[in-house]
């Protein structure tokens, strides 16, 4: 068994004294693990940092084996990201989200969005909005997608400003007004591809929305908690908050 693909390093685990078990996210093979012999060497340690892009060749005798990766660096983002507190929290949140996916299951759209966010980190605008979209897409890929196309009560696709925490469907301003206190806010940018968040408050609303459903549908049933990096990201966002979206 052998394949070669480009991918992002998600995480590494020590194996023995010199090797690492590497977890990578690839377009054609999804989240995939493999052993990198000599992965703890000075040369490879710089390459095998989360967020870095690498050319991966996986080999194993049988497909169900862990297998070995040979790794060649393609793009080093980690060094740049490490210096920025918010970007680092964003990267850690992103990799933790991908680790919710089943192994060896390709997710083309998620990979494309991951690539977009990784390219924008640490300081190109829009990556935070894309991270919120990534959370929405993770929910959808795991079977808990939200319906943000039309109002659950009236069917209209105009003026959608709420999401029902019960059904996960959008609700228009008029239909949701009597229940505003019990509904989740739907920031306008979240429903439009490529739209930039209007403000830091809109971003916080987006993360509150996705966070609610991630907790209820993913973290809760799996008896795990949201990654600390996500909490840290939200705190940094709140501290930076009020003004324009970062």
């Amino acid at each position: 068994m052998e394949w070669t693909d480009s991918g992002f390093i998600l995480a590494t685990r020590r194996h023995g004294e010199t090797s690492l078990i590497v977890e990578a996210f690839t377009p054609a093979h999804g989240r995939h693990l493999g052993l990198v012999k000599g992965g703890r060497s000075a040369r490879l340690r710089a390459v095998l940092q989360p967020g870095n892009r690498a050319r991966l060749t996986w080999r194993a005798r049988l497909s169900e084996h862990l297998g070995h990766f040979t790794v060649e660096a393609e793009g080093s983002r980690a060094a740049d990201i490490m210096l920025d507190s918010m970007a680092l929290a964003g990267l850690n949140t992103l990799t933790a989200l991908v680790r919710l996916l089943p192994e060896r299951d390709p997710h083309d759209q998620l990979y494309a969005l991951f690539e977009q966010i990784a390219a924008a980190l640490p300081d190109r605008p829009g990556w935070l909005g894309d991270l919120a979209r990534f959370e929405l897409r993770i929910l959808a890929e795991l079977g808990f997608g939200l319906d943000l196309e039309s109002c659950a009560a009236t069917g209209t696709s105009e003026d959608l400003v709420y999401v029902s925490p019960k059904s996960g469907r959008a609700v228009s301003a008029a239909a949701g007004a009597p229940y505003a206190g019990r509904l989740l806010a739907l920031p306008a940018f979240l429903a439009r591809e490529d739209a930039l968040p209007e403000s830091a408050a809109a971003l916080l609303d987006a993360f509150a929305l996705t966070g609610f459903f991630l907790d209820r549908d993913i973290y809760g049933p799996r008896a795990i908690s949201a990654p600390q990096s996500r909490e840290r990201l939200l705190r940094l966002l709140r501290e930076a908050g009020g003004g324009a979206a970062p």
Partner: protein
Amino acid sequence: MSRAIAGPEIEKLIQLLARLPGLGPRSARRAALYLIKRKDQLLVPLAGALQLAAERILVCSACGNIDTADPCAICTDPRRDASVICVVEDVADLWALERANAINARYHVLGGVLSPLDGTGPDDLNLAGLIERARAEDVREVLLAVNATVEGQTTAHYITDLLAGAGVSVSRLAHGVPVGGELDYLDDGTLAAAVKSRTPF
């Protein structure tokens, strides 16, 4: 089942040696044989040293360093600059900095880094002691000498936040070209970091 080639005492010695870093069963056998052949010069003194170390080794309650006294020799050394605390992940890092004679400060050993994959959270690290020490009147600077890895730097940013109200300046090690490093052989990330952190010549 393989036959034992020596008595249980020797087999146990080999098994224990094989657990040491860098040694496998074959090299453990060689090491055991080497020790046995030099019983008086090596085996007996080594056993004595191990016994003594096991009895006397302590973890410093102030910094987390390993020594035979609590507080450790570094914490009680009056010649050290008490205004700077150098934070390291592990005792091995402390030893590396001491070997290099890089800094005449006091240390604080975290005992690891934040790692969701390994289940290491803030409560598993020696952080409370660091905050307490940083608030002391004579401390002016905390140097975060953690590894230049995503996990190490995540921990560094976390500590920086914790120290926000402690009234100390927080610094970190520079990232860049190592001594003897050839640019052609460096990874892109290190090169980019080195250019970003360039200094006037």
